[in-house]
């Protein structure tokens, strides 16, 4: 089980959270102007990162805030959390490196 650091509530158990997929995917400025393939690209296509990955989590059973987490998809190592709009923490050098 993961211990996830909510930027407001602090470290809590994974069961209090919901996963929200890849972070930092900007909604197109003018969706009506997009081709279907471009819209599908925005909706469905995600990077399948092996290693450190920026992802969204929701503290659904706590403060009900969305925030971002940098987590290693191989080792589950969590580098840190940051609020929406904040800059991500620095990534470790190589996949799987200890902090």
């Amino acid at each position: 089980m993961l211990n996830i650091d909510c930027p407001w509530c602090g470290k809590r158990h994974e069961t209090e959270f919901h996963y929200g997929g890849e972070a930092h995917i900007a909604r197109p400025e003018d969706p009506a102007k997009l081709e279907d393939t471009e819209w599908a690209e925005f909706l469905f296509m995600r990077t399948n990162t092996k290693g450190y990955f920026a992802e969204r989590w929701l503290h659904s059973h706590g403060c009900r805030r969305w925030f971002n987490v940098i987590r290693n998809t191989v080792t589950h190592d969590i580098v840190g959390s940051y609020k929406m709009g904040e800059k991500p923490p620095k990534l470790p050098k190589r996949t799987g490196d200890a902090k």
Partner: protein
Amino acid sequence: MAETPWITPAAAIAESFPDGLKELGPRVQVNLRGDVTDSTFVNAVKTATGLDLPDAPNKVAAGKECKALWLSPDEWLLVGEGEAASLVQSLEEALSGQYVAINDVSANRTIFEISGPYCHQVLMKSSEVDFHPRAFAPGNCVQTLIAKSQAIVEQVGREMFHIYVRNSFSRYAGAWLAEALVEYSETS
């Protein structure tokens, strides 16, 4: 309005609760949302309720008539005795024209009071949150899962907690807490 009796699903089993666990009677519970960085909002709430809204996460601020539990960066649960309608009214008057939300949620949750030497152990069995005295103290509250159902836990005394549970989960949560309390009382 006609008086509606306060009956929750937990009432069916509350009579058989062990010492140290009880279901409290109805409390005024009002959910308040607003911008804590806006002094107009904070001052108006202070005028209406006497409360200094806690801006630190998971803290409780006590006032004369009611207290405020931090729920999220812009959300508090005001808990007190008396009439929800009058608290809502005084908040609405003080905050009129501001970008806020004031909702009477008194019937949303029932409150269990758990007390005595085993209350910490019962909570440790029920949740992943660290309720040890070195990490948690009177005046703290958290929203978390108690035996997998969403709850607000507030420490009100050195060996006393209030657990706010949605009414529809109250029979389950009450039975869980009762069972856990008996377990520790009998093995100690």
